[in-house]
């Protein structure tokens, strides 16, 4: 991965609010991150932590109302995706930014054959004619490891198994050589042996195509295997961000620390009793005035109720955490 390269996607201070009948829900609060070319950024968090909403806000996939992207900048290829007109955004979506959704069962259209669904973006975004698009579609299906690709173009989604459907989804997302691929829990609906196949495939494709990937998941194991850099989200905020080995070896946010202790493993020593994070995730009504993790935090002190911590640099280069407590010094930060 080239160090110091200009980020291909730069998100600053993104805020998304849902207006519901029972009040506002602040799903994404001042999220800032970037992705460099060829880098795999892992995004971890529990359900409701705002990881999917963040990515969908980026490329305008959320219906408005109820969603409202209130603030922030999404810089991609020299333009702000939040400000450009809908027509230009359509060219970016599916063309330069690919998206793989969680559930391959529901994200393919059941009434069109797979060939049509792969060639559609090719003809719209790349202006290929029917024959060229077909050839490219065969190439793509072979790339993602679907045997007998030419014949399977005529098949419908229900004729594919879950793992094969997810491969088709990846083929569609890759169709127009995107600069950024956003994969939203791409293996969560799949079995472990199929998940291992898909992860191997993504590793291979990265080497071949060199695009940037944002991989959203709640499974820390998957992240450990593929990511270069990890971003941990909690309560609609980024609470910690670090290179993968640094994050697992030297976590600096109490939530990350607790999360790493909670998950059991199939290898190594077996704990007699599982560590738990007591309590429930926060309800995101109203803009955050205090640390979202304070009710479940073992290191909570008076400042946590008063002030929402900003992200500050900790540990090694490229590592930051949003916490008032300094784990290396073993006490609260002064400033």
């Amino acid at each position, binding site marked *: 991965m080239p160090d110091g390269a200009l980020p291909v996607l730069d998100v600053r201070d993104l805020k998304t609010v849902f207006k519901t009948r029972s009040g506002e829900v602040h799903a994404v609060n001042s999220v800032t991150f970037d992705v460099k070319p060829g880098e795999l950024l892992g995004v971890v968090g529990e359900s409701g932590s705002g990881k999917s909403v963040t990515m969908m806000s980026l490329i305008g996939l959320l219906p408005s109302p109820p969603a409202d992207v209130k603030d922030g900048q999404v810089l991609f290829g020299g333009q702000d995706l939040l400000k450009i007109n809908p027509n230009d955004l359509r060219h970016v979506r599916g063309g330069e930014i690919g998206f793989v959704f969680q559930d391959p069962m529901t994200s393919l259209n059941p009434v069109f054959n797979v060939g049509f669904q792969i060639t559609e973006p090719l003809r719209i975004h790349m202006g290929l004619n029917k024959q060229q698009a077909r050839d490219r579609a065969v190439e793509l299906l072979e790339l993602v490891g679907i045997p007998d690709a030419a014949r399977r173009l005529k098949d419908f989604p229900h004729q594919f*198994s879950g793992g094969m459907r997810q491969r088709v989804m990846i083929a569609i997302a890759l169709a127009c050589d995107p600069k950024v691929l956003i994969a939203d829990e791409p293996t969560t609906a799949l079995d472990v*042996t199929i998940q291992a*196949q898909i992860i191997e495939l993504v590793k291979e494709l990265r080497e071949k195509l060199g695009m940037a990937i944002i991989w959203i998941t709640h499974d*820390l194991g998957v992240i450990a*295997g593929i990511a270069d850099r990890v971003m941990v989200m909690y309560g609609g905020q980024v609470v910690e961000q670090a290179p993968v080995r640094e994050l697992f070896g030297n976590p600096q946010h109490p939530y990350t620390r607790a999360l*790493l202790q909670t998950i059991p493993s*199939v290898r190594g020593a077996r704990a007699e009793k*599982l560590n738990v994070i007591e309590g429930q995730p926060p309800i995101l009504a109203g803009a955050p005035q205090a640390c979202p993790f304070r009710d479940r935090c073992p290191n909570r002190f008076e400042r946590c109720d008063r002030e929402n911590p900003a992200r500050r640099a900790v540990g090694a280069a490229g590592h930051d955490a949003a916490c008032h407590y300094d784990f290396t010094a073993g006490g609260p930060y002064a400033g």
Partner: protein
Amino acid sequence: MLDDTPSKTKPLVAVDNLKMHFPIYGGLLRRRTGEVKAVDGVSFDIFEGETLGLVGESGCGKSTVGRALLRLYELTDGTVKIDDYDIAHASPEALRKMRPTMQMIFQDPQASLNPRMTVADIIGEPLREHDTGSKLEREDRVLELMDQVGLNRDFANRYPHEFSGGQRQRIGIARALALNPKFIVCDEPIAALDVSIQAQVVNLLEELQDSLGLTYLFISHDLSMVRHIADRVAVMYLGRIVELAPREEIYSDPLHPYTKALLSAVPEPDPSIESKVERVILTGDVPSPSNPPKGCNFCTRCPSVMDVCKQIEPTFQEVRPGRYLACHLFEDTAQITDESAANGAG
């Protein structure tokens, strides 16, 4: 714990050659055209006070086994004995009398709780159904159960939608405990929960097992959680159990090629170990249970497949003390040693 005294405990649940086939109807006249062999000859015991983990990929029949054990389906073949009582062939009245002994915790706490009933009604329903005690006694019992599973007593009159996923699963657990069961089938009880909540529910299940002496069948696809909770683990593939062994042995030394592949596919939440893990990546998909391959079910994906695997179905047998396996790789060695022993003697 079971590992220390395997001979003293007796099996609470004894399953012998359980088969569960679902018919497929097709054609113009909706005639029976075939069957899905969801469970095809499964035998195992669960000892009193132990947790048997049942793992496998989706569609391998693990949930069907769980449901068939409680006779939520009419079995195609085989026997199930719980507490020495034959569940598979009991009359409906007799079965109803047996129900309090065996309960179930479901996967989706959202779908398994009636949204129109209050928490107290939901937990109290089994008590009403089986006529235990007066109204006041029942109310006391409901509150006692809520304490046991860590729900606040003040929430007794709330509805399920007012609770989070983890709390809803606690309601489901309280309902399963209401009639003092001996045996509980936990069908993916944590699959729908967040990582930080999963550990809370698993710890609760373990505490309840210790204090009430429960026996669990813990069905899950999460191998790391099963390693934590189970005493013995059974691995299913396409309607059959391929390997059954004590927890430590199956995780440290898996024998069946499928178990090996399954365990190696689990991602490791530590990058320094993760990069060293040797992966067995299986090719292809699970065959359809309506048309399983001839011979061993796993022969289409097995990395160490032999000719015999495509012809003859391996038998499920004890290859080492406490370790059961259905694989020709180990049958052959057994035969060879038998033969050489016989030759040596003759």
